[in-house]
C-alpha cells in the first residue's frame, strides 16, 4: 500500500469517525430532550402557564411542586401519582367547569383526596405517569379507570349499608334482590327471602300443562324490535321476575309434563252457601258487583290490571303481586277459591294477606275474575300436549335441576344444586385476563364484559345457562354498578376497618299478635324496626304516636290521613278481637324511647294555651302551608282535623321538638320552638277532634275512596 493510499484511508477513517461522533452526540442530546418532553413534565409547565392566567397566581405558584407528586397510603394499598398532572385538585378556586382538565379542582365530596387517594374510587393505575397508562388498560396494566357513571360502585366497596347519596347503587342492589339473582349466584349483602319464586309442589292443581308450556316459552313478556316491553300484550316498565329461558320444544314439553303432575295436595273445594248462589247467579249485576268489590278490597294495591283510558291501554296497580289481567284463563277455579280464602295454605311464604271473606263477596269476586279477567286467545300457539308420558316427566325432572329452575322454585323432596351459578362476590375486582370474552366484539375490560353478559348472556358464552332479562339502560347501569361494587373481602386490615356494615334487620313477633300479623301480612307494606315493605307508613313507633282507640277504629275501617295519598290499605273485615290484639300490641310494644305517651297529661292543657297555640299555628309559623285543618291548608303533611283523637300528646310534643329524632327521614323541618310554644301548639292540636264513629256500613266509605282511587 502506498503512502498516498494510506493517507486516503486515514482521511476516510477520520471522516467516518467525525460523522459518527456527530450522530452519537445528536442521539445523546435526544435523551435529555426526551426527558424534558415527558408527558407529566409538559403538564407541569402547562400548569405554570395556566396559573399565570388566574387571578390567584401567587397562591397557585406557591403550592406548585415541580416533581412527581404521590399520595402514599400504605394501609390502603394506595400509591397514586395522579396529582402529578391533576395539580389543581385541591385548589378551591379551580372548581369552575371552565377550568380545563387536568387542572380542575375535584368537586366537593365527603372524602378528601389527600386522605383517600384517587384510585380507591376511580380505579385505574395509581403509579403510572402517562395518561394512557394511568387511565386505560394497556398490556402491562389491567385496571382501566372506572367510568364516572358507575362511580357509585366504589362507594359500595366499603359502604355495605345503603347510602342516601348513592341512589344508583341502591337501585342496583334492589334489582339484584328483586330479580332473584341470589337464587343462582353468591351475592354478599343481597337479601335472600324465604321464597324466591313460587313453591311449585302443588302447581299441577293450579294451572294446566298448556299454560305452563306457554309461560315457559314466553313468560308473559314480549320485547319488540324497538325494545318496548309488553306483558300480556300491555306495555309496562316493570321487569317481570320470571326471566326468559331459551328452551327448545322438546324441553318445553318435558318441563310442562313434569310440572303438571306436581299435585301433592289437591285444594279442598269450597262450596259457597247455596242460598248466596241462588240469590246472585241470575243477577245481571253479579259481575259488576264483583268488580266493585275487587276494587273496594284494594286488590290493586298489590296487583295490576290492564286498563284502557282514552284509547291507551296501560297496566295500573301495584307490583307486589302478579299482574292479573288474564288470570281467569290461567288458574283452575277450585284453586282460585281455595287461594283467596287461605293463600298461606298454598304458599306458606306468600306476601298475600288472608282476608275474612263473606260467601257473598267471595262468590262475586271469583265470578268476576273467572268471567272478566280472561282471554280466550291466551293459549294460542300452544300445541295439543295431551297426557304427559313417563319419558317426558323424567326429562322434565332432569331439566328442572339442570336449567337451574330448582334454584328459585322449591318442590317438596327436590334438592337444588348448591351454588348453581358462579360466585359473584369478587366480580368487581376482576382483571380482564380473568374473564372469558368468547367471540364477543367488545372492549376487553370488566365494565364492557358485565354489560354484555347482562344484556345477552350468550354474547360472551354461547352455552350460558343464565336466562335473558329485558333491561332498560338505567336499570342495566344500576345493576352493573352494584356488581362492580362487589370486590370481595377487603385486601388489608386498614380497608377492613373502613367497611360500613349493613344492619341486619328482622322482626318476628310471637304470640297472638304474631299470629294476626302473619295472617294479615302487615310487613308486606309496613316496616317494623327496619323490616318490611315501604309502601305504607313505618309502624315501628306507632304505639307512641297513635291513641289505642284510634288504632282500633282505623284497623276496622282504614282511611287516609294525607290529602294527596290514595288509600291503599285494604279492609280486611277484621274481627273486633283481631283489631284489639293488634292495637294492644302496637300500643304496648311499638314505642319510641323519646316519646312516652304517659309523660304528657292532656289535662294540663288550658284553653288559654290552646288559643295561643292556634295563633302560633296560623300566624307565626303558618303551619297551614303544609297541613290541612277543616277545608283549607296544604297537601304536604297529614291533615290534622282529628289530631286530638288520633295522636298522643306526648308524641306531639316530642315531634315538635325534633321530628327527625322520631322519624329520621321525615320531611317536616326541625323548628326552634320554645318550650311554651311546644306546649301551646300541643294544647291546640289536642282540641281538634272529629266525632266519626266507625260507620255501620264500611263499604260506603270504601266506595267513596275507591272512586277517588280510580282517578289515579
Amino acid at each position: 500500500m502506498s503512502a498516498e493510499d494510506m493517507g486516503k484511508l486515514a482521511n476516510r477513517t477520520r471522516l467516518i469517525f467525525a460523522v459518527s461522533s456527530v450522530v452519537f452526540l445528536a442521539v445523546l442530546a435526544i435523551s435529555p430532550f426526551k426527558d424534558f418532553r415527558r408527558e407529566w413534565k409538559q403538564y407541569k409547565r402547562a400548569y405554570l402557564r395556566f396559573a399565570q392566567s388566574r387571578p390567584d397566581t401567587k397562591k397557585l405558584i406557591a403550592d406548585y411542586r415541580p416533581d412527581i407528586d404521590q399520595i402514599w397510603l400504605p394501609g390502603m394499598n394506595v400509591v397514586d401519582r395522579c396529582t402529578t398532572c391533576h395539580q389543581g385538585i385541591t385548589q378551591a378556586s379551580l372548581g369552575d367547569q371552565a377550568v380545563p382538565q387536568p387542572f380542575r379542582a375535584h368537586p366537593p365530596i365527603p372524602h378528601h383526596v389527600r386522605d383517600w387517594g384517587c384510585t380507591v374510587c376511580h380505579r385505574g393505575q395509581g403509579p403510572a405517569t402517562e395518561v394512557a397508562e394511568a387511565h386505560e388498560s394497556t398490556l402491562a396494566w389491567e385496571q382501566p379507570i372506572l367510568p364516572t357513571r358507575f362511580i357509585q360502585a366504589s362507594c359500595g366497596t366499603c359502604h355495605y349499608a345503603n347510602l342516601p347519596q348513592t341512589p344508583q347503587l341502591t337501585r342496583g342492589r334492589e334489582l339484584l334482590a328483586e330479580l332473584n339473582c341470589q337464587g343462582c349466584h353468591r351475592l354478599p349483602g343481597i337479601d335472600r327471602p324465604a321464597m324466591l319464586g313460587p313453591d311449585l309442589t302443588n302447581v299441577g292443581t293450579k294451572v294446566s300443562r298448556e299454560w305452563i308450556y306457554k309461560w315457559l316459552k314466553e313468560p308473559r313478556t314480549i320485547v319488540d324490535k324497538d325494545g318496548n316491553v309488553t306483558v300480556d300484550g300491555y306495555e309496562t316498565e316493570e321487569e317481570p321476575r320470571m326471566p326468559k329461558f331459551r328452551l327448545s320444544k322438546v324441553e318445553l314439553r318435558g318441563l310442562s309434563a313434569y310440572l303438571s303432575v306436581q299435585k301433592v295436595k289437591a285444594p279442598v273445594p269450597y262450596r259457597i252457601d247455596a242460598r248466596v248462589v241462588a240469590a246472585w247467579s241470575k243477577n245481571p249485576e253479579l259481575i259488576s258487583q264483583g268488580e266493585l268489590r275487587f276494587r273496594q278490597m284494594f286488590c290493586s294495591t298489590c296487583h295490576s290490571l290492564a286498563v284502557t283510558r282514552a284509547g291507551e291501554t296501560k297496566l295500573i296497580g301495584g307490583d307486589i303481586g302478579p299482574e292479573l289481567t288474564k288470570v281467569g284463563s290461567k288458574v283452575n277455579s277450585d284453586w282460585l277459591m281455595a287461594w283467596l280464602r287461605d293463600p298461606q295454605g298454598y304458599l306458606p311464604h306468600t306476601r298475600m294477606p288472608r282476608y275474612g271473606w263473606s260467601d257473598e263477596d267471595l262468590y262475586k269476586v271469583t265470578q268476576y275474575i273467572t268471567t272478566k279477567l280472561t282471554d280466550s286467545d291466551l293459549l294460542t300457539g300452544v300445541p295439543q300436549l295431551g297426557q304427559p308420558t313417563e319419558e317426558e316427566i323424567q326429562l322434565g325432572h332432569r331439566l328442572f335441576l339442570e336449567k337451574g329452575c330448582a334454584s328459585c322454585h322449591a318442590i317438596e323432596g327436590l334438592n337444588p344444586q348448591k351454588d348453581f351459578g358462579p360466585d359473584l362476590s369478587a366480580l368487581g375486582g376482576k382483571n380482564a385476563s380473568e374473564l372469558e370474552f368468547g367471540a364477543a366484539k367488545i372492549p376487553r375490560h370488566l365494565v364492557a364484559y358485565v354489560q354484555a353478559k347482562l344484556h345477552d348472556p350468550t354474547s360472551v358464552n354461547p352455552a350460558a345457562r343464565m336466562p335473558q332479562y329485558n333491561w332498560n339502560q338505567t336499570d342495566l347501569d344500576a345493576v352493573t354498578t352494584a356488581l362492580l361494587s362487589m370486590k370481595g373481602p377487603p385486601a388489608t386490615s386498614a380497608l377492613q376497618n373502613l367497611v360500613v356494615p349493613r344492619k341486619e334487620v328482622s322482626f318476628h313477633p310471637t304470640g297472638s299478635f304474631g299470629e294476626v300479623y302473619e295472617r294479615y301480612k302487615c310487613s308486606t307494606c309496613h316496616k317494623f324496626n327496619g323490616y318490611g315493605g315501604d309502601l305504607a307508613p313505618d309502624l315501628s313507633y306507632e304505639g307512641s304516636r297513635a291513641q289505642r282507640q284510634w288504632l282500633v277504629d282505623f284497623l276496622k275501617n282504614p282511611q287516609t290521613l294525607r290529602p294527596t295519598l290514595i288509600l291503599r290499605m285494604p279492609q280486611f273485615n277484621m274481627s273486633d278481637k283481631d283489631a284489639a290484639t293488634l292495637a294492644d300490641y302496637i300500643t304496648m310494644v311499638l314505642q319510641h324511647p323519646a316519646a312516652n305517651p304517659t309523660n304528657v297529661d292532656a289535662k294540663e292543657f288550658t284553653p288559654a294555651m290552646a288559643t295561643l297555640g292556634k295563633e302560633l299555628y296560623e300566624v307565626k309559623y303558618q303551619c297551614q302551608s303544609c297541613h290541612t285543618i277543616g277545608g283549607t291548608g296544604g297537601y304536604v303533611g297529614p291533615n290534622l282535623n282529628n289530631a286530638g283523637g288520633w295522636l298522643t300528646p306526648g308524641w306531639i310534643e316530642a315531634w315538635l321538638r325534633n321530628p327527625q329524632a322520631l322519624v329520621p327521614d321525615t320531611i317536616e323541618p326541625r323548628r326552634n320552638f320554645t318550650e311554651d310554644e311546644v306546649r301551646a301548639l300541643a294544647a291546640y292540636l289536642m282540641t281538634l277532634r272529629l266525632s266519626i264513629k266507625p260507620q255501620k256500613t264500611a263499604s260506603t266509605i270504601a266506595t267513596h275512596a275507591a272512586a277517588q282511587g280510580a282517578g289515579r
Partner: protein
Amino acid sequence: MKFHLWIGVLLLMTLAGTAGCRKRGEPAKADPLLAAYDTEADWTDAQRVIPLSYQQAQGKRIFYQQCVWCHADATPAGPSNRSNLTPIPPLLNDGAALNAESDQNLQNIVTLGGSAVGKSAMMPPYGRMLSAEEIRSVIAFARVIAQPPYQSPRRVGSQ
C-alpha cells in the same frame, strides 16, 4: 457508496429516536352525560338532559325529598302544594326570580326561613335539619336547572 448508506442508517435511527418524543394523542373527549354523576331533564324542555355533578346530584336528591312539594308543579305524590300557598312560591328553575339572588341570600332564606329575611313565613327554616353543605348543594342544583340560565358572577381570586 457503502459509506453514504451507513450515514443514512445512522440518521434514520436518530429520527426513530425522536419519534418516541411525539406527544401521545389526547384521550377522546368524554360525553358529558356519560361522565355525569346523575342527570336531570330540563323542566322546560324534556328533550334536553342536564348532566349533574356530585354536589348538584345531592341537591337534586334533597330537593325531591324536601322542597319538591311547594317548588315544583308535579310531585312524587301527584298534585303540587304550590297553589295552596299565598304568595305562590317560585319554581326551583325560575331563573327570573332566583338568578338575581346571591348564593348567600338563598342560603339564608333556606337556613333561617322566609320570616327571618322578610319573606313569607310559609317557607320554614331548614337550618336545624339540613347541614350548610346540604343547603349549598340544593342551591347548586337550582343554579344548574335555572331557566333562563344562571350566570355566576365573576369569580374573585382567593387572595
